[in-house]
């Protein structure tokens, strides 16, 4: 029961990030800036939740919205720079991850630092009434999992049933034909990456309000970040929303499984990252390119 709870806790951000990355790839944008959006979303939620007064649900909603907004803003900024100055999005978004990490650390330390903590760079603890409710006692499994599942349903509906979803598919399959059909490519790219950035920012906010209850430097980002697992899930899932669910579950199992193996057998947790690399490698051979243009 504990392990299922821990796996579902890890599944929440992995699925959300996976959804964000999935939509970006499907729309032809090879954006790998999910980690930065994730961290900044978490920072916004941590900073807002500690500062805003009012009843718990108000704080919760405002913080989640703030996280989504900052994630969208960051993604939009990177995408605009990439579009306007013709810089490869994949390179710019990778650098932007490091920049976002530094910006979040600097902002936390100088603006939002909890004065009671000296050894860690972290925001003040969010009031307990604003936390996402816990679902079990032994693990940090929280109501965020419902947000992730609802987002998965929403993305499925968006991609399969709406005009915007059709455009996403068209721009991914054939950007020239999509542009000729009358959609402004620059405007579409803006809407697409604002949407995917907001989903990844929301993932960070959910992680902060559900698990950490504060933004902690290094808790969301880095090589071990769950955002990378989400990106991996999206790469493996290819073109199917439905396939994203089992892919995310697999990666969540790997995350918690290797934490267990590390404790039991003394194998380095790097094994999980190594396997993640090998899984991505299979995606590179699956014949499905994540997006039609591979750079910008």
């Amino acid at each position: 029961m504990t392990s299922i709870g821990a796996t579902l806790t890890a599944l929440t951000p992995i699925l959300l990030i996976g959804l964000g990355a999935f939509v970006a790839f499907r729309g032809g944008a090879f954006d790998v800036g999910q980690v930065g959006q994730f961290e900044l979303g978490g920072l916004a939620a941590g900073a807002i939740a500690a500062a805003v007064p009012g009843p718990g649900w108000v704080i919760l909603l405002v913080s989640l919205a703030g996280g989504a907004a900052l994630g969208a803003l960051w993604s939009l900024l990177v995408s605009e720079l990439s579009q306007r100055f013709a810089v490869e999005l994949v390179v710019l978004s990778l650098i932007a991850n490091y920049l976002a990490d530094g910006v979040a650390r600097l902002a936390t330390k100088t603006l939002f630092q909890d004065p009671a903590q000296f050894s860690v760079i972290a925001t003040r603890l969010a009031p307990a009434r604003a936390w996402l409710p816990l679902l079990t006692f032994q693990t940090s499994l929280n109501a965020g999992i419902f947000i992730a599942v609802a987002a998965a349903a929403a993305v499925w509906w968006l991609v399969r049933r709406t005009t915007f979803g059709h455009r996403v598919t068209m721009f991914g399959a054939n950007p020239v034909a999509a542009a000729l059909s009358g959609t402004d490519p620059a405007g579409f790219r803006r809407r697409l990456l604002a949407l995917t950035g907001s989903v990844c920012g929301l993932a960070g906010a959910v992680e902060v309000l559900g698990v950490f209850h504060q933004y902690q430097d290094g808790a969301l980002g880095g090589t071990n970040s769950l955002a990378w697992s989400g990106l991996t899930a999206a790469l493996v899932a290819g073109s199917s929303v439905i396939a994203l669910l089992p892919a995310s579950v697999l990666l969540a199992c790997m995350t918690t499984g290797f934490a267990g193996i590390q404790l039991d057998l003394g194998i380095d947790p790097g094994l999980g990252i190594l396997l993640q690399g090998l899984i991505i490698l299979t995606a590179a051979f699956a014949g499905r390119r994540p997006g039609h243009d591979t750079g910008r």
Partner: protein
Amino acid sequence: MLHLLASSTIWYQTLQAATSLLLVTLGLYLPYRAGVLNLGGEGIMLAACFGAVLAEDKTGGGALAGTLAGAVSGILIAALFALLTVGLGANGLVVGLALNFATAGGTAVATTALYGISGAISTPNLRTLPTWHLPGFGRLPWIAQVVSGQTPLTYLSWAAAAAVAWYLHHTRAGLTIRAAGTRPDVVAGAGRSVTRVQWLCLTAGGALIGLGAAQLALSSVAQFSYNMTAGRGFVALALTLIAGTRSLLLVPLAIAFALFDIYGVNLQSAGLPAELSSVVPYAAVVVLLVLTRLLRRPGRGPGEPHPRASIAIAGAGQVTGDSLEEAGRP
């Protein structure tokens, strides 16, 4: 704050860090000019750091063994990248990402398996690279402290930068490399193999990346630590994009970013928040990346056809193919 800039220690450390960055950047620049965006540079560099430290510790061959092992590991991982992308046609961007994860995880697992501790390898067998004191520099006080007494790899990196620029722009083979990046169809039409050019550039680049990794792992402190490259491979890739077709720009760029790094670490003593050091270098990369694209000569970058070329050989065939897509442009 500005007095730091006059300090010879800061500049000595800057050149030391710039060496590693310059070698890695050159190693990514060669395939970039041949039309391949090597996103695996970070992983190649990390694996080569590990290879260098492991070889030096296990063989007892000293810094020379470490340096050679770094170059060989670089070649091997770069050849793997070439095999998967150029050889077998897998998506280069995805393979690059995968390599970065596989090496970060793989070196961590190997560290624990071989040394029984996770995190860092630091043993008494590990010696730093020797330093060369240049003759005739003794009389120039500040310059001597900065330029002399660096590792041989520093002087090699400067020579390599000049050699790469000269080779690309003044030899037939260099022309073929540049053509493979801009007009692969022309290279193919001239009876040369684009694939072969890209293979050679990737593996030769791998050797340079490996040397850069050896400098990183063995220059100031000889050790391997988890994820010690910390994004330098990506910064190097951004530097190649910033330099574009201007090969010689790589030297001042590498030195400038090393300075940002070293200066950032020392900002704390000037009363500024230490966290600035994790913002400034990356912000500078983004700003320069954007600025240079603004000033770029149109139609001269790898992967984008020269404006006049399509007229000269009109009807020579559609410019498509993997090399263009790997260069990162539709």
